[in-house]
Structures are given as structure tokens and as C-alpha cells.
């Protein structure tokens, strides 16, 4: 991994709390992600993993605490939310490609409208990224004509087109047929190798083992355990993590 332990902090959670009515979705989250770090967040369903990752680009608001990105408090009122979001790539479980636009137009939409890039440059960069995810031949296809794995790779290329310093992945392979999981993980691995800062909510424990710099284990809205993949998978320290891993391996 290119990640150096002394790298500067990129994302900091400080006492983050979120409630849905009486339901405590996130409880006292304090953690940080350094530049170039790959963090995998795992835990049972309903543990708040997706909610946590969605607070980082403010798809979810928080009620208490603070989240800093590159030193700036992202939940402050004065934040230019659109500008901020353009610096973070987000990949959804359900891809969320725009079905009325071609693959290439999906990718160039935000560069053209948000970054005001020139059309030619945006398309050229779009083609580069499609080539990177192995789908250059699908530039003029519509999302509905692609397989799930292909759609998710396009979604990753679409996020990368904004040249974000960090990428968030919210269960990127959970909606895929098993035979398509590999191609998406491959793209994510190559991003990690290139030093992209990443937070991934995923159930792919092999991916975590191979690529993550650290693993955060969540349960009931809390981060229960953090550690290197070796430590977490080899010797989980909390009973809940032990049970979670035992349940996983029994499947």
C-alpha cells in the first residue's frame, strides 16, 4: 500500500450523533481517515455503516458533533455544499446512473455543468476513465443496456471524472450477481493502489483483507472496534466482532 502512517488527516469524525426520531442511528462516532488511506467499514445490517458514510457528503445531516474534511467543518451553515460535494466521489449500491443519458454523457454531465469544463476536454477525460474501467467500447450505450457490473464501473468512472481527492463506496457490490462482483472490486483495488483515499462499506471481507489499511467494525450505531485487517480478522478483540466474523465464515 502507498499509504504512509504519518500522512495528514483528511476526514475527521468528532462525537458525531444522529437520530431518526427516537432511534439513535449514529452514537458518538469519533474516528479519522488519513490521506491515501483505505478504510473498510463492516458490521451487521442496521449498524449505521451506510448512514455514517452518507454523512460525509451530507446526504444525511447530523444532529451533534462535527465532521471535518480537509480541515473544514462540512456540516456548518456557511459551507458551499455543491462545491464541497464535487470533491467527493460517491458510489451507490444501486448504481444510480442516469438512464436517459448515454454512458459518456453520464460521465461528462457534472464536469460540464459543475466544473464548467470545455466539452472536448470533458469527453476526452471521460473516454480515458471509461478505458480505465474497461468500458471504452460502451461510451455510446445507455445504462439499461449494460450489466450490473458494467453499470457500477461506469458509476465509478462518473465519480472519478470530478477528480475527487476521496471516494466513498456504499455497498458497491451488494446489488450485483456474484459473477460481477470481481470486476468492480478490481477497479476499486486499482484505485486503492494509486493512493486514492477511500471509505468503503462492504461485505467483501477478502477485499478488506487485501486492500484495507484499517477496518472499522460498527454495531448499533457505534464504532465498536478498529484495527488493521490482520488484527481485526486474525484476532478480533470484542465479542460482537468475534460473533460477526464467525457468522460470516459459517456462510
Amino acid at each position, binding site marked *: 500500500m502507498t499509504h504512509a502512517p504519518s500522512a495528514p488527516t483528511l476526514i475527521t469524525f468528532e462525537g458525531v450523533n444522529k437520530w431518526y426520531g427516537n432511534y439513535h442511528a449514529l452514537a458518538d462516532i469519533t474516528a479519522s481517515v488519513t490521506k491515501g488511506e483505505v478504510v473498510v467499514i463492516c458490521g451487521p445490517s442496521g449498524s449505521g455503516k451506510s448512514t455514517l458514510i452518507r454523512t460525509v457528503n451530507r446526504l444525511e445531516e447530523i444532529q451533534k458533533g462535527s465532521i471535518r474534511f480537509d480541515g473544514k467543518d462540512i456540516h456548518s451553515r456557511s459551507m458551499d455544499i455543491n*462545491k464541497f460535494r464535487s470533491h467527493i466521489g460517491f458510489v*451507490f449500491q444501486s448504481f*444510480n446512473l442516469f*438512464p436517459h443519458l448515454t454512458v459518456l454523457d453520464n460521465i461528462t*454531465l*457534472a464536469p460540464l455543468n*459543475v466544473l464548467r469544463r470545455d466539452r472536448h476536454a470533458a469527453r476526452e477525460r471521460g473516454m480515458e476513465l471509461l478505458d480505465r474501467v474497461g468500458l471504452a467500447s460502451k461510451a455510446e450505450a445507455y445504462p*439499461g443496456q449494460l450489466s450490473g457490473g458494467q453499470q457500477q464501473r461506469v458509476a465509478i468512472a462518473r465519480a472519478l471524472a*470530478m477528480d475527487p481527492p476521496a471516494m466513498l463506496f456504499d455497498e458497491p457490490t451488494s446489488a450485483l450477481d456474484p459473477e460481477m462482483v470481481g470486476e468492480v472490486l478490481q477497479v476499486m483495488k486499482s484505485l486503492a493502489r494509486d493512493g486514492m483515499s477511500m471509505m468503503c462499506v462492504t461485505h467483501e471481507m477478502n477485499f478488506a483483507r487485501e486492500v484495507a489499511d484499517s477496518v472499522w467494525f460498527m454495531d448499533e450505531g457505534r464504532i465498536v472496534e478498529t484495527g488493521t485487517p490482520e488484527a481485526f480478522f486474525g484476532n478480533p478483540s470484542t465479542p460482537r466482532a468475534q460473533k460477526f466474523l464467525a457468522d460470516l465464515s459459517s456462510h
Partner: protein
Amino acid sequence: MTDILAILRDYGLLLLVGQFPNGPMGGLAITIALSIGGIALAFPLGVVLALGRISRFAVLAWPATVVVYVARGVPLIMFIFWMYYFLPVATGRPVSGLTTMLVTLVVYQAAYIAEIVRAGIEGLPRGQMEASRSLGMSYLQTMRKVILPQALYNMVPTLLSQFISTIKETSLGYVIGVNELTFAANQINTTLLTKPFQVFAILAAIYFALCFSLTLMARQLERRISARRAGLGSQSGAATTPRPQIITE
């Protein structure tokens, strides 16, 4: 039947274009012009009202909601009368029946179109808005580039049936003396005096031919759109969702 043919021979042109070119345009031409003009102007207003309705800002949501509820909650003919007396007072000068009818149709139809567009927007998966906003697109950019193009495309058949309703509604212009198709038919009836069944059978046939062919067109479009969606938008299983019913009253 010979009566009908005779009436068509003598008065066909009056039904089609009124006294034009020797007098003002009227008949079917005005009916169609009113319908197209009405829906064309009502459409942008309807989109604006729909955006107001779903806005999280109360200053936008409230007025839009009031307009939509009031317009949908009163009979069109009452609305026509109301505009007929209100517009000259509001503008300080006489307003023709044609203009009154057009303004009435625009406001009335905009309220219905607003609800169609709102349903179209809210029917899209939430992920579309989230994905676009995550890329840094603003709310309005997202509406313009991502949400509305999809919503409006899906709404084309419903909008077309709204257009069909508008055609039939223009006949109410008769009560304030708009020289449209129904008005022309009535003129013929008062001239002939003895052939009301024939005259109004012709009138009904013209409306029916117009509206029914448009209904068929809406069906055709709807089929094309669901076929296209099955091929393109497979990610949410759109192919299996039931097609919306076309309602043309």
C-alpha cells in the same frame, strides 16, 4: 344522412374556419388553436407550479398548493365566468372572449399539469436526485438535467390525454361567445332551426374523430415508451411495473 351531407356542403367551411377569410377566424380552427395555445402556455406554468409544490420552502410551496387546489376544486365553467368578469377589471380594459378563454384554460390546465409533473418527479427513484447532488450539481441543475427530462418523458402519454381534455373544454368557450366549433355549430342550428339532431351529430363526430385519434396516438406512444424503458431502464425493474392508465374522461 342526406341532410347531414347537405349541411356539410353548405356550412362545412363555417365549421372549419368560421367566416374566414371574409370575417374572423372561427370553428374548428379556433378550437384547435385554443387547445394548442392553452396547453403550450399551461405546460411551463405547470412545471413551475409543480416545482413550487415540492419545494421545501413554504413561501413557494403554499401559493403553488393554493393555486392547484383552487383550480382543481371548482368547475371550469365557474372559472370561465369568474375570469370573464375579473379580467376587464384587473386589466382596466375590455378583454375578448377568446383571450378570456385562453387565460382561463392556461391557469386551469396548469393546475392539472402541475399534479401530473409532480407525480412524474416523485415517481423517479430517490437515487437519481442523490447521485446528481453527490456530483456537486445544484438542485436546479439536477431538476433541469436529470429529473425533469426523465419525468416529462414518462409523462408524455398523460400530458397528451390532458391535451384531449383541453380540446373538449374549449367548447365551454361558447358561453362567453368564443367563436369556436360549438359556437359555429350553434350558429348553423339557429339558421336552420329544424335540423338540431343532424347539426349536433356532426359536431359530436368532429370532436370524437379528433379526440379518439389522439387517444390512439397516446396509446401508441405509451407502448413505445414502456418498450423503450424495458430496454433502457432495467435497473429498477421498470419493465414489470404496470403501465399507467390513460384517462380521457
